């Protein structure tokens, strides 16, 4: 892979889609919610999701023949970044919209698409991700959840962890081993669609140092999954998962988790900040604007049918570090002792951002793993 490919000189970002922006902003103007950092993870509001869906902003890339708005990934990108910049509560439909829709469009059966896509577009059906396990985080291929062949399907047993909102989701896409482990560690993995209300599913909360409960441990004890709910090809789960990663790693959620805090920082610094405040603000905005261009160039490449996995990894690495940098800049510019229960929005957002910070560079592939991917593409590994 050439350096030009990685660095992406030849990819331009797309145009602005001003009509969509206006529509989303007008929708948001009519909504009342408290902006939050990390809103795509902690802002869980099914009613908001339904209202958003009614305006055609959920499952935007679902084709019209499956009851969706039939929009492009770039149009979805614009809508999503508007929602995240506003700190809107999008968590209830987030996984379904970001992961499940492209997965089913690409690998789902006709029956699966007909069953799930219209419901997702209506904001009526939510999904969780069942990938990580207590002993398998960065080393995802080492997962031990297994699917044994039974009559008409699989019996799935194992433990999944870090499953956001599993306790209030309808379904979970589980990565499990359906064939015995061989020398090729990536072979024999499959993606199965599990009903979280099925017998054998037990969901236990995992509380974070932030005080939030959105993560869970999901214990699967011989959960029966019919063949009709195998996603894609049995044994090909690994390559299916990898293809999702370019989408997952480079999106606006990797840049904008702390944007609501940045807005409050601008408010707090006023319209005539001192030199230090102006410089700090200018630097943060320069890095953010740059990251947005990078992220958009990946989105444009994806739209053009390419799979810029390395550039997506770079976006996530740089973007998530910058999300943390916004928090630090805000902290240093303001002499506060923030708390999540403060009456001041600024203090609440700052506290939220500080507490949520470590997660940015861990979730969706740790930054160290991502750098390893970049290093490999440069021929160093």
């Amino acid at each position, binding site marked *: 892979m050439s350096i030009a490919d990685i660095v992406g000189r030849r990819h331009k970002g797309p145009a602005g889609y001003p009509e969509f922006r206006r529509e989303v902003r007008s929708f948001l103007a009519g909504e009342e919610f408290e902006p939050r950092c990390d809103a795509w993870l902690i802002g869980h509001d099914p009613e908001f999701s339904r209202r958003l869906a009614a305006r055609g902003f959920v499952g935007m890339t679902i084709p019209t023949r499956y009851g969706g708005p039939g929009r492009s990934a770039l149009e979805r990108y614009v809508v999503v970044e508007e929602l995240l910049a506003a700190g809107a509560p999008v968590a209830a439909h987030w996984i379904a919209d970001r992961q499940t829709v492209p997965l089913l469009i690409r690998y789902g059966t006709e029956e699966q698409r007909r069953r799930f896509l219209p419901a997702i577009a209506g904001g009526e059906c939510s999904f969780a991700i069942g990938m990580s396990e207590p002993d398998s985080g960065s080393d995802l291929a080492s997962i031990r959840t297994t699917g044994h062949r039974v009559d008409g399907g699989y019996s799935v047993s194992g433990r999944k962890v870090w499953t956001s909102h599993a306790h209030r989701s309808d379904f979970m896409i589980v990565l499990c081993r359906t064939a015995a482990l061989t020398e090729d560690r990536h072979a024999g993995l499959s993606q199965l669609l599990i009903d979280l209300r099925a017998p054998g599913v037990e969901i236990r909360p995992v509380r974070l140092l932030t005080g939030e409960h959105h993560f869970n441990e999901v214990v699967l004890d011989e959960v029966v999954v019919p063949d009709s709910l195998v996603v894609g090809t049995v044994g090909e789960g690994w390559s299916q998962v990898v293809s999702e990663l370019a989408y997952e790693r480079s999106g606006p959620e990797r840049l904008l988790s702390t944007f609501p805090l940045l807005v409050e920082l601008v*408010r707090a610094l006023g319209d005539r*900040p001192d030199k230090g405040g102006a410089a700090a603000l200018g630097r943060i905005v320069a890095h953010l604007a740059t990251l947005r261009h990078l992220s958009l160039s990946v989105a444009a490449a994806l739209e053009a049918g390419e799979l810029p996995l390395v550039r997506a990894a770079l976006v996530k690495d740089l973007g998530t570090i910058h999300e943390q940098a916004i928090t630090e800049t805000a902290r240093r510019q303001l002499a506060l002792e923030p708390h999540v229960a403060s009456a001041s929005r600024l203090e609440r957002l700052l506290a939220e951002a500080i507490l949520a910070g470590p997660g940015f560079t861990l979730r969706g592939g740790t930054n160290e793993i*991502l750098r390893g991917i970049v290093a490999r593409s440069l021929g160093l590994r």
Partner: protein
Amino acid sequence: MSALALLEETLAELFERELRAAGATPDLLWRRLEEAGLTLAGVPEAAGGSGGGLEEAAAVVRVAGYFAAPTPLAETAFLAGWLLAEAGLPIPAGPLTATAAESISLRHANGGFVLEGRAARVPWARAARSVVVLAGGHVACVPGEAVGLEQAENLAGEPRDDLVFDGVALTADEARPAPAGVDAESFRARGALARSLAMVGALERVLELSVRYAGERVQFGRPIGRFQAVQQEIAVLAGEVAAATAAVAAAVESCDVLAIAVAKIRAGDAATKGASIAHQVHGAIGFTEEHELHRFTLRLWAWRDEFGSEEHWAVALGKLVAAAGPHGLWPLLTATKEEEHDG
């Protein structure tokens, strides 16, 4: 291959050939560039340039940065040629440079003009046949011999000479009023964009050198690139190059002062971090005069401070953002040319 890609390739081939040739001199290099019609890329043909637009001019500057070309390509086309074309003045042959130093005054005298004052650190002044001056709301083209010169250099040894205008007389047609939008501020922004482009070129080279070195240098029985610590650092370097490239590409596309501020800040930060990582990867040998790494890192260190450092542009950008206010931040980040025309 697109016309732009062909331009880049032609220029790169020329640099490869000329910079490695025995007896290579900056004068000879310039002559080859002029013969190939590459010295006025991006300047309109009607004004005497080789045509094309900002994209072409930008590509030339970036490729010159990649080769650390010891020649005022950026100054000639991007700055001097731009000023002359905007003012409707003919473009003379030979290497050019430009200055908009506010310490130079222009006054009317004897039916023409007189230039007075001192311009500090004019890039490549000693190599330039003519100096284009933006002063007193006018653009003037001054023959090199008419100006006093005191030699100085930047960290990379590139000429940054002081020029002394001691009552330099110009005829009426040797200076023209600068059109709206051409002033000291826009000149500085243009220069900042030029340096940002050059830094992107140099950063690409620095990344290449680091990857190559990590693959070749063997210690503890394996190439040092096999160690995770080295891999992680080079990956960070790649990220900086990607970021700088994206920021500068966006600035070339929109060419507004906000985008240029973003580009200069981001490229400057990338230059700082990138040079640091490259030297760390190369170890002691990369620190020597003999090794080629310094040809690029010295330039990165010099260029990041020219036409406004990251701090200067961050203050400017921060003030712009603060003036837009909390509700103006996101619209500022998402505004596009189309919207500006709609609005």
